[in-house]
């Protein structure tokens, strides 16, 4: 081989593979990329909405005259009392041409004609302008197995459609969310609660039914599309321009002490509205259907969450002194007292100490967390009101916590009241931190040194647990630990707690996306998320912020507040303000939803603890967030 040929061969060896790889990447990217929509401005949205509203209210036609492109289809959805009562598609080369056709269909729709005039006024029209489309799947055989199936579409942002008999049949992004077809596959048996991946079979069925077919649409006939979506403002705020939506949510209110306080109070109102006469909460509320769990019969109820939610209401009362909170708090406590009256858990220790614990009627084993959070709630109530009527009850519970604490400061987590025996092996999440917090709070209201000492020992054990080489690399779910560490200050005044919680904050910040980090997913900024390919759960943005507030305050107590933690708190709270249901976003909520906190941007289910954690963080931050 000549020198020149060798040189050429060498160059090819070094460049050709990269060129091939780059070409493959560029081809795949351009095939599957749908550019983000160029969004209609205020005037354009107002003009489109005016045309459609005239049709909805059966008023004379309002011609639409703006020139803006559309990829063939514009969909107008009319929301009334939280339900989509009618959807009309219009087609055309411009937004106005499509809107005019959709308006004509709305005007003639029987459902619209049957609506009462006041309902038409209250109804809100959502518009989805299709701006681009791309293939759905087709790459499974060439990609890493599971990737293309699990992450086929950007959930809540993209819809799925098919061309049937020359017409585009569409399932809009919000319809896929409501149909619960976006996160159905469970990739790991080890984490059964974790689900992701679209259900293409069901989507094919839904599209087939929408097109009037008796068969499902095959997966290879489907495509993805993106929309520029907006919805009319609530009646009280019209004629403000329609609100731009991204993943179904408009821009959040600006973060301030006032907005946080109002949002926390709305959360309180939501919980009070979901507290039954018997003192039990309506545990879950599915916003898209209005389905709610039955507080009288539901077996799916968590006593730790009952106690935690009541704790939040007591905390909200302590900070806001809103009198409408007091009776519901006492009603929720009365339910605890009712359970105690059955005497299933009460006992007297050999030294004569009376103990008691919280155990639900369906449970045979008492969980430490139920009792710990009940103590936290009862102590919080006493802090808020000065009323000592629950102190004997709280004292019995706290004696139970002391009984469950080992000499090294750790806690046993389960107790069998029938056998009067604790389980020395079971280790559950959260309970040790919750017990330490309960002891710290009891010290605050009683000044009993035994509680302070027990809280200190509990915290020492929790923090020292990480004292091994690998323990320096990670943190578990330590939010209760940091809340307890701050609550125990100054009785337990160890600077290591501050270091621990600041370190925990740094660990969590690595999971918190910054603006621009994922341009299509900027609505996730501030949330805690392992990957931008899966929407974050909303609750950690609350529970971890509760912990970070304590970490920040702990830093202040020690004269060393961490500004990074402060910004972390602000980012998370800004995210939660956007996620919470408010008048702007309740157009697709069935039942009382204002103040509720959905499970995630694509999960419309609200559970009581989602509201508790997020709103507790909001009300605590509202006390200092405006300070320089």
């Amino acid at each position, binding site marked *: 081989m000549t020198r020149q040929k060798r040189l050429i061969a060498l160059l090819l060896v070094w460049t050709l*593979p990269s060129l091939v*790889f780059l070409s*493959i*990447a*560029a*081809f*795949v*990217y*351009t*095939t*599957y*990329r*749908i550019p*983000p929509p160029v969004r209609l401005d205020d005037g354009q949205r107002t003009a489109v909405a005016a045309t459609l509203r005239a049709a909805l209210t059966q008023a004379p036609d309002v011609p639409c005259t703006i020139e803006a492109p559309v990829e063939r289809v514009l969909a107008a959805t009319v929301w009334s009392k939280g339900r989509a009562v009618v959807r009309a598609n219009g087609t055309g080369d411009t937004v106005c041409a499509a809107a005019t056709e959709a308006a004509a269909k709305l005007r003639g729709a029987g459902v619209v004609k049957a609506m009462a005039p006041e309902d038409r006024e209250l109804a809100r029209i959502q518009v989805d302008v299709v701006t681009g489309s*791309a293939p759905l799947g087709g*790459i499974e*055989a*060439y*990609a*890493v*197995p*599971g*990737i*293309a199936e699990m*992450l*086929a*579409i*950007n959930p809540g942002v*993209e819809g799925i459609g098919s061309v049937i008999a020359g017409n585009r049949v569409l399932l809009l992004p919000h319809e896929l969310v409501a149909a619960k077809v976006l996160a159905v596959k469970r990739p790991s048996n080890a984490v059964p609660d974790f689900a992701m991946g679209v259900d293409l079979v069901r989507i094919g069925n839904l599209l087939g039914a929408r097109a009037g077919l008796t068969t499902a649409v095959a997966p290879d006939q489907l495509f*993805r599309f993106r929309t520029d979506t907006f919805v009319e403002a609530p009646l009280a705020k019209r004629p403000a321009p329609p609100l731009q939506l991204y993943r179904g949510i408009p821009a959040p209110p600006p973060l301030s002490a006032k907005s946080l306080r109002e949002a926390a109070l709305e959360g309180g109102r939501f919980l009070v509205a979901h507290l039954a006469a018997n003192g039990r909460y309506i545990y879950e509320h599915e916003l898209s259907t209005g389905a709610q769990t039955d507080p009288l019969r539901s077996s799916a109820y968590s006593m730790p969450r009952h106690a935690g939610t009541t704790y939040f209401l007591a905390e909200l009362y302590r900070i806001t002194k809103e009198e409408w909170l007091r009776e519901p708090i006492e009603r929720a406590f009365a339910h605890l007292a009712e359970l105690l009256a059955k005497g299933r858990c009460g006992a007297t220790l050999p030294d004569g100490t009376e103990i008691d614990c919280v155990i639900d009627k369906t449970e045979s084993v008492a969980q430490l967390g139920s009792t710990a959070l009940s103590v936290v709630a009862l102590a919080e109530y006493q802090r808020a009101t000065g009323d000592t009527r629950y102190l004997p009850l709280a004292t019995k519970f706290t004696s139970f916590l002391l009984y469950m604490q080992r000499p090294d400061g750790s806690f046993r987590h389960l107790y069998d009241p029938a056998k009067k025996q604790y389980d020395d092996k079971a280790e559950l999440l959260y309970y040790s931190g919750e017990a330490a917090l309960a002891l710290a709070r009891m010290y605050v209201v009683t000044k009993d040194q035994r509680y302070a000492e027990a809280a200190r020992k509990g915290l020492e054990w929790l923090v020292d647990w990480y004292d091994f080489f690998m323990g320096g690399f990670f943190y578990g779910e330590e939010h209760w630990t940091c809340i307890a560490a701050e609550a125990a200050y100054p009785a337990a005044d160890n600077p290591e707690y501050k270091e621990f919680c600041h370190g925990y904050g740094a660990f969590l910040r690595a999971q918190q996306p910054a603006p621009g*980090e*994922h*341009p*299509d*997913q900027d609505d996730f900024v501030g949330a805690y998320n*392992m*990957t*931008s*390919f899966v929407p974050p759960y909303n609750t950690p943005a609350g529970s971890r912020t509760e912990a970070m507030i304590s970490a920040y305050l702990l830093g202040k107590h020690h004269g060393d507040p961490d500004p990074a933690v402060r910004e972390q708190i602000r980012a998370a709270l800004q995210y939660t303000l956007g996620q919470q249901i408010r008048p702007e976003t309740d157009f697709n909520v069935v039942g009382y939803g204002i103040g509720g906190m959905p499970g995630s941007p694509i999960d419309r289910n609200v559970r009581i603890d989602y509201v508790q954690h997020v709103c507790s963080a909001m009300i605590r931050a509202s006390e200092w967030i405006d300070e320089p």
Partner: protein
Amino acid sequence: MARGSAGKGKARAKAPQRADIVRAAAEVTAPKKDLRRWVIYPALCVLFATTQAILIWKVVPNRLPSANFHLWTLPILTYIMGIATLRGGRLAWQIAIVSGSLALLSGILLIVRIIISAAFLSGVYGAFGKAAAMTALTSVALLVELVALLPIFQLKYLMSRAGRKAMGTT
């Protein structure tokens, strides 16, 4: 790429010699067995094939038949390459070369799959993200280490003059 071509070898003189002289000379100058053919590469092949098989079986099992087929080509081809190297002879040498090349190709295809997946996710989600990029790079690095390096070195050896001599093809 066959650098040790037959043309470079010098023809040996074939003068008649007495058998005992030949035997004695052989005892003095007999080359040592090439450890790379007899021990190092076969052992590495078995080690890598076993590691790959355990990883595919226990750590990253896949329910898709096509993906499973692709993954299992790696330990099987590596194992065949090792056995053929140990076996020696012209046919075994050819089998080792083919199986090693296929193992390398299979590894490259795995890297291509990662690239396609990254490009697909960037297309659908707008960006790939630092964590995903790190995961992908780590995966490629592991693939190179666990799948590609051994065939590259072993093929290089098998194609060399020493390798072919040790395999008994010259």
